[in-house]
């Protein structure tokens, strides 16, 4: 890790509702370089909320506080909404689980990518079109010219996810946040998407935050892993050293997964400690 793209210190997110205060994130800190950083946790661990907070896309009811969320020279916490609009998409891209919800159903995918490019670079529409087609090629879509004219509902899951990645990349962001981006995909398609993300980090020097519930996937794909439980990072380690995890939660998660090659009669069940 040579340079830090993003630095998060003591991030806290809480919801104030009728039923009282709910702390979704309780003091999360990490730095992101030009690397693949995995954030792993089960539902309710606050991993997605952490990703949202970086883009300042938390729901209105959420109260966000932190020492800082520093993106280069900008502190995201104090930035104006205009600055944030510029950052979203242009400096930080977000890919979510279901591309269908993120794409406009009545506009062709090519035009949506071109539009994203035009908004951020103020270039001509023919230039934007050229870039969009090139970007479709870059995410390994065959016949980009034909796909340019297709509508989101004509896409398969893997193709839709490539379109989302193309759309995020066309404005050349520094950071990409993938929130369960491959969870809905079949295993064979998933490999191709991971491959693509890996290339992008290597060739373009992106910082990738890979949010997932799948510990095996993250350990094989990412450089570093943060394991979150109930709003806290319980453990942070190199992905290759996950076997030496010391925290009982991490160990419990690893144990609870069914294994292809080492069958066991019963799966060990995680016992949760309220002190974690």
């Amino acid at each position, binding site marked *: 890790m040579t340079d830090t793209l993003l630095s998060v210190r003591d991030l806290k997110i809480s919801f104030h509702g009728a039923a009282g205060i709910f702390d979704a994130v309780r003091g999360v800190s990490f730095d992101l370089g030009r690397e693949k950083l995995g954030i792993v946790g089960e539902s309710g661990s606050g991993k997605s909320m952490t990703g949202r907070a970086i883009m300042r896309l938390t729901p209105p009811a959420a109260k966000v506080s932190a020492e800082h969320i520093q993106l280069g020279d900008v502190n995201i916490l104090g930035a104006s909404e205009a600055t944030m609009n510029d950052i979203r998409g242009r400096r930080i891209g977000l890919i979510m689980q279901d591309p269908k919800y993120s794409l406009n159903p009545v506009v062709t995918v090519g035009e949506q990518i071109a539009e994203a490019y035009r908004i951020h670079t103020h270039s001509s529409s023919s230039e934007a079109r050229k870039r969009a087609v090139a970007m479709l090629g870059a995410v390994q879509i065959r016949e980009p010219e034909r796909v340019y004219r297709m509508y989101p509902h004509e896409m398969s899951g893997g193709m839709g996810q490539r379109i989302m990645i193309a759309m995020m990349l066309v404005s050349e962001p520094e950071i990409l946040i993938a929130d369960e981006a491959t969870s809905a995909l079949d295993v064979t398609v998933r490999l191709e998407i991971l*491959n693509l993300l890996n290339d992008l980090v290597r060739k373009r020097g992106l910082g990738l935050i890979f949010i997932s519930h799948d510990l095996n996937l993250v350990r094989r794909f990412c450089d570093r892993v943060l394991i979150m439980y109930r709003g806290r990072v319980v453990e942070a380690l190199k992905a290759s050293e996950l076997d030496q995890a010391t925290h009982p939660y991490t160990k419990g998660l690893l144990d609870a997964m069914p294994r292809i090659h080492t069958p066991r009669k019963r799966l060990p069940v995680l016992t949760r400690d309220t002190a974690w």
Partner: protein
Amino acid sequence: MVNGMKEAVPIIEIDNLSVTFGEYGDERRAVDSVSFSVDRGETFGLVGESGSGKSTILRAITGLVANEASVLRVAGTDIRKTRGKDFYRKVQMVFQDPYEALHPRHTVWRQLMEPARIQKLQGAEARGHAALDAVGLSRSLLWRYPHQLSGGQRQRVAIARALMSEPDILLLDEPTSALDVSVQAEILNLLCDLQDERGLTYLMVTHDLGVVAHMCRRTAVMQAGVIVETLGVDALVNGGATQEYTKRLIAASEAYGEDPRDLVPVLAQQE
């Protein structure tokens, strides 16, 4: 049985099962001439990627989708034309998303009493309590609504509901894929325990080879509505697959499986 060996008795027999969706002229074969049989007391897996038709087979067996077959028998009874009351007692289904599968405005207790009422089961209350105990649900959850339960609790309620009629066969449609890993372990253990106690037969649909390896004895691998091959799980995980598609599926699953090797070289090979 003289030698103590359990003889394999087929409880589900399927030959040439096909399901066609769509209107005349725009038809799509979701399941195409599928044949397999499941023995009493075993767990049989149906593995495949989305759109392979694996869930459609379960729905065809239960009659939720129209189908044609040369043989479709459950416990020796032909169910191609009609399914009697007895069928719905013997065969129950557990769905992928337990929140979707439970009535959104009924309490846990009412969810359990519904099958008792419909099937006019004797001793409904005793059965309800027994089912709750079997799945390890606390009595304090009795009057909660599904939205007040966790994902694992919801799936336990759904399983308890399926147990009300004391079935022989459970059709499991991705029963843990909507759940967290630690909860998945609990539910899979529960399913194993129930099988040991009650001698249940499971027909389990899943896309997760890890789950298949853990649960099943035999499995059918499906692609585009067709069974590519049927094989023992030992063979599946130890390189005994003969078909190209099966091998690819295993390779893709193992690429990010428990093997601690780095994924990047594997990815490079794929290119």
